[in-house]
């Protein structure tokens, strides 16, 4: 079983499936794809993220050896390596997964059409009470939001719910109930990824107060052609294209009061964001305010060099003290200490992007308890030996991969995912060499 359907989970499931093992892939959200699906492009090649990921998502879903269970969480574990029993709670979608074709007609028909902030687009777009999680969602099946749907909250939606009328294949089923599934597996791979820190706790940055302060993921959705603004990079305050954008690094990170680690990806992510902004609108000036610029991965330093020399991205070693908003223009005034000159400087930016900390998943402590494995001082899952056994956990048969194990970029996550698959295959091989019964799911 693979827990988490982001790029790490998908890769692990595909490797095991291709290897000939049966796999359950359990994903909490309504679609697999994870964080990578939300990115516009990926560094250092600026490949379109969803374009390279979507075929993998489908391959995984359609794989004869892989069973994808979305909208579901792991709630219980018994047994040991080679013989685990896992309890999975599948929440109701109120839409029949076999019947729904993902056309989206229900969302258009919904009485509460485009009323609610859309989770996938970081709240920048609006969705209806019934909707697809996103256009390339896998499975491409709609989901009813039980907090808002009138049928589910009030038991009534006009004379007849318009979504039911609009649905050609008659897939809507308000009677669905949560389902508890028990699965027998030989090994478990934890690939639950990360959450994002809410930067509104840092009052000095004015996130949530100043309209033109965004997080990096909001920026991704904004600049993505598949996002709510179709790739038009516009300010929330007035819908104008900003002339200057400042990226602020390490928000909540490398900070002993918050998250003391380095996230390993933000320097390159802001570099990418700056390049993309320049490619959309060459006249935009982009600044990156950082304290350490770490471009450690393969081809990363070259990427930063190119951003600086060819695109004219300005990297400033400086720590921002506070942000103020010009009440008229809604521009941001950033006061910062320029660490190279030692002087206090001011800069005006029409848009500010905060690189907030990717943090251990909200539910990873709970999952760690369910699985009987440990988390480290920051909340990432602890490997058995951070040097020699980075993929294994203290519990035999449970393996780690991706950001859930600690900060890393996509290629390292993919490598770890394959690694976890290799370890799981070892468990299965050992079991079959002992002559135990075979054919159980991985």
């Amino acid at each position, binding site marked *: 079983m693979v827990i988490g359907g982001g790029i790490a989970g998908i890769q692990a499931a595909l490797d095991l499936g291709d290897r000939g093992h049966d796999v359950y892939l359990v994903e909490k959200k309504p679609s697999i794809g994870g964080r990578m699906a939300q990115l516009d492009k990926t560094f250092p090649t600026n490949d379109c993220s969803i374009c390279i990921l979507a075929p993998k998502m489908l391959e995984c879903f359609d794989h004869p050896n892989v069973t994808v269970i979305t909208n579901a969480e792991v709630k219980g574990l018994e047994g040991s390596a080679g013989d685990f029993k896992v309890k999975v709670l599948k929440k109701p979608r109120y839409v029949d997964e076999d019947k729904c074709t993902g056309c989206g007609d229900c969302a258009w028909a919904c009485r509460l059409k485009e009323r609610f902030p859309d989770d996938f687009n970081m709240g920048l777009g609006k969705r209806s009470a019934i909707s697809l999680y996103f256009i390339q969602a896998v499975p491409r099946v709609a989901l009813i939001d039980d907090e808002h749907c009138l049928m589910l909250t009030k038991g009534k939606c006009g004379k007849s719910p318009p979504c039911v009328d609009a649905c050609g294949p008659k897939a809507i089923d308000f009677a669905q109930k949560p389902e508890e599934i028990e699965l027998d597996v030989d090994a478990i791979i934890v690939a639950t990824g990360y959450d994002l820190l809410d930067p509104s706790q840092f009052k000095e940055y004015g996130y949530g107060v100043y309209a033109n302060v965004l997080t990096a993921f909001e920026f991704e959705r904004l600049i993505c052609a598949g996002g709510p603004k179709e790739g038009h990079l516009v300010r929330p305050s007035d819908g104008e294209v900003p002339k200057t954008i400042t990226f602020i690094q390490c928000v909540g990170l490398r900070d002993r009061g918050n998250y003391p680690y380095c996230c390993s990806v933000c320097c390159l992510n802001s570099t990418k964001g700056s390049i993309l902004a320049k490619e959309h609108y060459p006249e935009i000036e982009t600044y990156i305010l950082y304290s350490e610029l770490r*471009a450690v991965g393969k081809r990363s330093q070259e990427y930063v060099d190119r951003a600086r020399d060819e695109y004219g991205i300005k990297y400033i070693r400086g720590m921002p003290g506070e942000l103020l908003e010009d009440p008229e223009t809604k521009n941001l005034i950033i006061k910062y200490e320029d660490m190279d000159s030692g002087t206090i400087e001011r800069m005006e930016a029409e848009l500010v992007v905060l690189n907030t900390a990717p943090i251990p998943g909200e539910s990873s402590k709970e999952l760690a308890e369910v699985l009987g494995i440990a988390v480290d001082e920051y909340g990432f899952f602890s490997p058995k030996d951070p*040097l020699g056994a980075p993929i294994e956990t203290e519990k035999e048969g449970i393996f780690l991969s991706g950001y859930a194990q600690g*900060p890393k970029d*996509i290629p390292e996550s993919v490598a770890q995912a*394959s690694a976890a698959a290799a370890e799981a295959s070892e468990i299965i091989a050992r079991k079959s060499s002992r002559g135990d019964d075979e054919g159980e799911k991985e």
Partner: protein
Amino acid sequence: MDATDDEIRVGVFICHCGSNIGGVVDVPAVTEYAKTLPNVVYAERNLYTCSSDGIDSIKRAIQEHNLNRVVVAACTPRTHEPLFRKACEDAGLNKYIFEFANIRDHCSWIHMREPEKATEKAKDLVRMAVAKASLLEPQEEKKVSVEPKTLVIGGGISGMTAALNLARQGFDVHIVEKERDLGGMARQLYKLYPTFVDALEFVNALVKEVEAEERITIWTSTTVKEVEGYVGNFKATITIGGEDEVLKVGTIIVAIGAAEFKPDGFYDYDGSRVITQLELEARLRACEEAGDFSELGGKRIVMIQCVGARGRKFSYCSKICCTTALKNALVIKEKVPDAEIYVLHRGINVYGEYEYLLIEARESGIRFVKFGLENEPNVEGTSVTVYHENIRKELELEADLVVLSTPLISTPEYEQLSKMLKVPLGLDGFFYEAHVKLRPLDFATDGIYVCGTAHGPRDIPESIAQALGASSRASIPMARGFVVPEAITPVVDETACVKCGICVDKCPYSALRLDDDKLEVIDALCKGCGTCVAACPTGALDQRHFRNKEVEAQIKTFFCLS
């Protein structure tokens, strides 16, 4: 209904995709149009051709109308071709008689504000698909068997880790190591971060495990001389003690590690008073063995980072040098508490959870001085001068020992192996993977994988993860026992081929070979990209399922020439 064997009977299925296509393209009009096309004996439209209803409808129509070619006009083959091909197979047809027209991405999406033009374009695409489908031929897929054995080139931590995992999955493994002992560069290290265990103890424990594994054959003091073949069927000639030996394997893992850059000409490097981090590790090991750390070379130590890296000789960041410097500085501080250590750096690149090493180093009294590329430190005798960017002052430090942190680099062996295996190297000199994001451990050539520092600078835990990952990738074709290349490979017209070899050079997958004046297509390696067909000056190559006549028919019908 009866049909003669050679009668072409095309069925066309046009998808509304809810309102996705139907909301823009006039699907009923396209369906009526399809019925008028040559060879089309049946056309229908579906709300969703991909739904179970739609698939059943295709199968039913194949039976009822005796169809022998099928066209679906819907979304993209990238996601849906396998589904429709399977429907054809289920109904008893060969899957290669299926053709796709993408009227969603190419019509309703891109021309959503021009429904009439989108409809016209949809008609064009359907006409072209029918023209091609009429000429399509059934194809036979050939299975290529895979020898369940792996050759691991390189016996360092990466190679040993990959070999152990594969052996424990039940595969036979040959490890080829050019040195006398297994262990690689880790043998030259003293302590290993992040746990600060002894490097030799760590490596020796791993070597023991490898030696105890029955399925692993160890070839030390051995080099790889030649590799022939392709996925599943490689023949590797290795040389040991002047004798050649031939190994037959199904997969190959490249784990040859990297070398430390020797900084000749940098900062008076002399290997005694100005040394590299690797030389420092050896010295620390010697001190430990002598039980006396006063032999280190002095208590005033200056480390200089990025020597030769990040824009000086090599453009890349070597990823491990900052953590390595901090590790060694912390080790020295523990052994020689009154040592005075300065680390001169251009930004400390500890990343992820290694940030704590920097915190610990600062707390233990190790001092950090940031300098810029334009203001490099100067080493003269025991004096090191450096412009400290943070306090904006020139510092003069006394150093008994200067330690240069130099990058990991590729070796001349890379070039040889790259040619031998026909896999590429990147601009940085390291092996170049199939895809930087999603296929970090594969090569574009099937059956060959890369891991560890051969892929680029990385530390031991990352190398171990990659090694296990490469082992997973290699296990896939071996566990299946065969690979099935898609039947879209080129065929050679011997009479037209002039053996010029242009196609051989152009093929990105090394799938063509000119042996004994005969051009051979290795189907197992071919991805059907068609580059060779386009490159062939005499038209001697013709690609199955994309025959020249099929593509020409599409073009002609587009211009209404036929």
